[in-house]
C-alpha cells in the first residue's frame, strides 16, 4: 500500500493550491496531514480520490497514475473528503448497500460488513432514513460507507470535525485499530489527535510540503521549548509561521 505524489501541482486560475508536492507514503499506519485552512490538504486528498485532476505532476496509488487509470487506482482507496452526506431519501441500509454494490461486494459479505460497522460505529437503526439523521449520525453513516469496502488505503479529511466528544472517542478508537493494517492519510487541525493516532505527519502551507517525518522527529526538531517538554503545537507553529 503506497501513495506517491510526484511534482503534484494544482492551480485554480491564478491561485496555486499545490506547488510541486513530492511525497511517498507506505503503509500500514496513520499519517497526519497538517496545515492551515487553504494550505492544500483537501486538494491533495481530492486529487488522490479523482475528484480533482492535477494541473501537472502525478498522484500514484500503488503505482497506478490516477490521471491514467483512476478506476484501477480507486479500487485500493476509500475516501472521506470534506463533508459528504448520504442521499436523504435512502435508509441507512439502502445507502450502504448502494455503496457496497458499486464496490461489487457480494451480498453475503455485504450483510456481514454492514452488521460489523453498525456495531463498531454505533449506527442508528438501519431502516432510518438518512435525511432524518443528526449531523453526527450522518457522519457515522458516511464513515461506515467509507470503511465498507475494506480498502488498504483510506483518505480521511478531518474525520472527527463537528462530532461531540463521545463520537470523537468512538471514531478515534476505530481509526487506531484500522491504522494497524491500513495506510491512512488523515488531515486534521487537532494536534492532540495527530499525536495520539499518527506515526508520521506531513505539514503543508501555501501549497508547499514543508516536512514529512515521524511525529516524534518533528516534535523533537521543531518543537523545542525554552523550558519543558517539546510539543507538536510549537513545531507546527514554527513550521507554518516561522516563529
Amino acid at each position, binding site marked *: 500500500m503506497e501513495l506517491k505524489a510526484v511534482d503534484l501541482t494544482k492551480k485554480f486560475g491564478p491561485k496555486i493550491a499545490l506547488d510541486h508536492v513530492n511525497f511517498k507514503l507506505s503503509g500500514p499506519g496513520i499519517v497526519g496531514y497538517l496545515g492551515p485552512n487553504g494550505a492544500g490538504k483537501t486538494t491533495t486528498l481530492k486529487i488522490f480520490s479523482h475528484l480533482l485532476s492535477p494541473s501537472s505532476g502525478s498522484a500514484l496509488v500503488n503505482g497506478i497514475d490516477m490521471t491514467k487509470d483512476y478506476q484501477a487506482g480507486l479500487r485500493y482507496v476509500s475516501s*472521506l473528503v470534506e463533508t459528504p452526506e448520504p442521499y436523504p431519501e435512502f435508509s441507512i441500509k439502502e445507502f450502504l448497500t448502494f455503496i457496497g454494490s458499486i464496490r461489487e461486494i457480494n451480498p453475503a459479505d455485504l450483510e456481514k460488513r454492514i452488521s460489523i460497522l453498525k456495531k463498531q460505529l454505533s449506527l442508528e437503526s438501519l431502516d432510518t432514513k438518512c435525511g432524518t439523521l443528526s449531523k453526527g449520525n450522518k457522519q457515522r453513516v458516511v464513515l461506515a460507507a467509507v470503511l465498507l469496502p475494506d480498502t488498504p488505503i483510506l483518505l480521511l479529511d478531518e474525520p472527527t470535525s463537528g462530532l461531540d466528544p463521545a463520537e470523537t472517542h468512538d471514531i478515534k478508537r476505530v481509526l487506531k485499530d484500522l491504522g494497524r493494517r491500513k495506510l491512512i492519510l488523515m488531515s486534521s487541525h487537532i494536534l492532540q489527535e495527530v499525536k495520539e493516532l499518527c506515526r508520521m505527519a506531513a505539514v503543508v502551507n501555501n501549497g508547499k510540503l514543508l516536512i514529512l517525518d515521524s511525529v516524534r522527529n518533528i516534535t523533537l526538531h521543531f518543537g523545542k521549548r525554552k523550558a519543558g517538554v517539546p510539543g507538536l503545537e510549537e513545531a507546527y507553529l514554527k513550521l507554518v509561521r516561522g516563529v
Partner: protein
Amino acid sequence: MSALRVFYVFFMNQLKSSKAAIISFSILSVILVGLLSFLSIKGSFSSQEFFSSFGLVVWLMIGLTCTNVAGGIGIRDFDEKAGLLILSQPVKRYIILSARLLASVLVVLLPVSMMYIAGWILGYSIYSTSMNNVLLSYSIAFLYAFSFSSLIAMAGTISRRKADAINIGLSITLLSVFIFAVLENFFGIEPWFFLPYAGLAIGNALIVPYPAHVNPGSYFFRYTPYVQEAVLIMAVYAFFSLIMAFLVYSRRELVN
C-alpha cells in the same frame, strides 16, 4: 459483466430517486387528458382536432417531465454532498451518467404511456374512432423523450446548480411556441434547428392525412416537420447532447 452490474446499480438508484416524479407525473398526465376530453366535448371538437390537441399535450408533458426528471442527472453528484462519496468510487463516470439517463427516459415513458392509453380510451369513447398511427406517434414520442432528456442532461453537466438545468428545460418547453411564431412569422424561418419543432411530429402523426409542411393558416405552427425530418433533428440533438454530456461529466472536477 462488472460494468453492467454497476450500470444496474446506478440505474436502480435513479429509478428510486425518481419515484415521486413518476407517480405525480403519471397522475397529472391522466388528469390532463381527462381535461382535454372534457374540453373537446364542450367545444365540440372533431376527432382530428381532439387527437392533434392530444399530441400537443403529450409534446408539452414530455418537455416538462424530462426537465424535471433529467434536470438533475448531469449535476446531481456535483451539486449534492453525496457526490463526494459517489464520484470517488472506482466507477467510470460514463457508466453513471448513461445509467441515470436511461432510467430517466424510462421514468418519462410511464406517464407518456398512460397518456396514450387514456387518450385512446377517451378518444374512442367520445368519437367511436381509434387513434390514428398510435405506434408511429408513440415511437416519435419515445425518441423525443430520449433526445430532450439528453439535452437537459447535457445542460445539467455544464450548470452550477440543478435549478439552472431546470430553468433551461422549462424555458425551452414553455417558450417554444412563441419562438416558433417569432421565427416563422417575423423572419420566415423554418425552425428545424430547434428540438421542440421536431417534437410537433408526435401530434401530426395522429392526424390523417399527415399535415402539409407549410401551413399558412396557422399563426403559431406555420411550418410542420415531416416525420423523417423530425427523426433526423431528434437524432442529431441526441447524438451531440450525449457526446457533450459524457465529455463534460467525465472531466468535471468537484470544486467546492
